[in-house]
């Protein structure tokens, strides 16, 4: 079974958020980047598990510049068989989805996995767009997936419960917590990753006309006030007079 896993690059969860160019662009200077955790911990690892029990190949794909290669190498170190980078700026979800769909059409995958969202822009868009472009079913927020002979049973987390779905491959799925458990690449995997193919392909035309006007940061939260645990009167006074919640 051949699985395509879409992986993207996001700033580290501890990275500072600031913008450049009239607040139109995230400032990448001095930031550390990681593979989007939903892609890495759940989508990629579940794909690896399915490959391990059913055979086949796991391909990872990213749309972005050469500075994204370390993310792909990490995916290869975790165990993916090959990596594809579509050499273009990932301007918006439709552009990215069009690139992934174009690659997938040419290469025929049984399954396409992505994360439920990226932890930077939280768009949750690419997976559904890829499915639409390929005319395939799409399942979002999958927290469990079992597969036998071309049929999958997928659990979706919904408000207050779980929805259980059954469908045949091929389809597109976005991975949520629970689908798999994080795998940390080991040193042998890292060494092997160097010998696996990382192919760079050109982008296809896919304009969406979308552009970012600006980003805004939320208002400052203000500083924390420490109150002596024995001074309940002071706590009550602050809640009443300053926070005005009692």
């Amino acid at each position, binding site marked *: 079974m051949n699985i395509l896993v879409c992986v993207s690059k996001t700033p580290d969860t*501890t990275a500072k958020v600031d913008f450049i160019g009239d607040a139109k662009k995230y400032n990448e200077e001095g930031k*550390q980047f*990681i593979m989007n955790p939903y892609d890495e911990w759940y989508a990629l690892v579940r794909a690896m598990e399915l490959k391990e029990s059913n055979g086949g190949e796991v391909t990872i794909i990213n749309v972005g510049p050469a500075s994204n*290669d*370390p993310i792909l*190498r*990490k995916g290869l*170190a975790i165990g993916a068989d090959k990596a594809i980078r579509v050499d273009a700026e990932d301007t918006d979800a439709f552009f990215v989805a069009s690139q992934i769909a174009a690659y997938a059409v040419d290469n025929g995958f049984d399954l396409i996995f992505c994360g439920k969202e990226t932890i930077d822009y939280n768009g949750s868009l690419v997976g559904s767009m890829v499915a639409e472009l390929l005319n395939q079913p799409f399942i979002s927020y999958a927290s469990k997936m079992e597969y036998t002979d071309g049929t999958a049973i997928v659990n979706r987390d919904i408000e207050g419960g779980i929805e259980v779905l059954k469908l045949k491959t091929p389809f597109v799925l976005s991975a949520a917590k629970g689908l798999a458990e*994080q795998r*940390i*690449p*080991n*040193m*042998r995997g*890292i*060494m092997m*990753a*160097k010998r696996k193919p990382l192919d760079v392909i050109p982008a296809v035309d896919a304009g969406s006309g979308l552009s970012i006007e600006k980003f805004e940061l939320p208002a400052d939260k203000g500083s924390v006030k*420490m109150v002596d645990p024995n001074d309940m009167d002071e706590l009550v006074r602050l809640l009443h007079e300053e926070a005005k919640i009692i």
Partner: protein
Amino acid sequence: MSSSKTDKFQYHDYYVIDELLDENHLLARQAVRDWVKQEVSPIIEEYSDKAECPTHLFKGLAEIGAFGPSLPEKYGCGGMDEIAYGIIMQELERGDSGIRSMASVQGSLVMYPIYKFGTEEHRKKYLPKLASGELIGCFGLTEPDFGSNPAGMITNIKDDGDAYILNGAKMWITNSPVADIAVVWGRDEVGKVRGMIVEMDWPGVSAPEIKGKWSLRASVTGELVFEDVRVPKTHMLEVRGLKGPLSCLSKARYGIAWGAVGAALDCYDSALRYSLERIQFDKPIGQFQLTQKKLAEMITEITKAQLLNWRLGTLANNGKVTPAQISMAKRNNVAIALDIAREARQIHGGMGITNEYPVMRHMMNLETVLTYEGTHDIHLLITGHDVTGLNAFK
């Protein structure tokens, strides 16, 4: 008390030394850091508190490939370069010096001599199992009466047909109470130092634990006692003289030079964060000049030590590093790490003495690191010997 804390560590690379590293180094560093955050940080204070070794971590260390990462892949090892090995040690010691010790003994003091001085049979028999953590090893050089002066060792072997009879006692042996095998150094009948692989379940071998350590509390240390142990001659390593154990120590000391920077980084990182959060006299304490002096000196020393390590690693990769160069880095980096731990402890005020923060644990650990693998003063004498040509040991 502390098991639910999250590890907020962030790396500090003031001189952008990452640009001198390759993709593998960065991947290895991230992998080990993730592992430490997941497996070590949540439990380390508790194990240190109880003075208990988290032996379940041997398996995890093996899985990430921390045992013998720079030995060849055909023996189940990583096949990485020396910088990668150093980086792994740095990240492990960022978690705890005891956890790093578990890995450096296994990799540099057990697997390395078997690889370097063992027969092909030894390598095939032991290395894959040591790499996978199925076997745990220890290294017996130090004796109760011979620490800095291993040349005086009295542990000895006597010829007895197809075996040697081993007698003696080793002291301060990391991992010995939990080990399956030991690489042991003893004197033969003509007085030459010989190395051998001893299996811990052989008759006459025992390894009582040393209790009461205030340092490296999460690492288990013991003695090795040999009473008329029959060591088949097939278990002897092919090396004679002190250069055998000393070459292993060079490997381990190299890893310690990197490891110490990990401990220093953790102390600095915690102190920096605390100095920005802790308010006194209506200001974050990081705004006071005396706190800034401490922090500025810490990051300066860390940066120098990082550069030292990178250069040492490059020399090691090119096969050009000398034992004296390793001594300089081990001595310097452990000393600055200990100083940084002490200054960081001060910045944390009273909180600094508790296990809410990692600093005091690192400080206590580093007292061992300052002493083992050649004491601070012995490494100074090695540098002194190297630059003057005059031996001040005796």
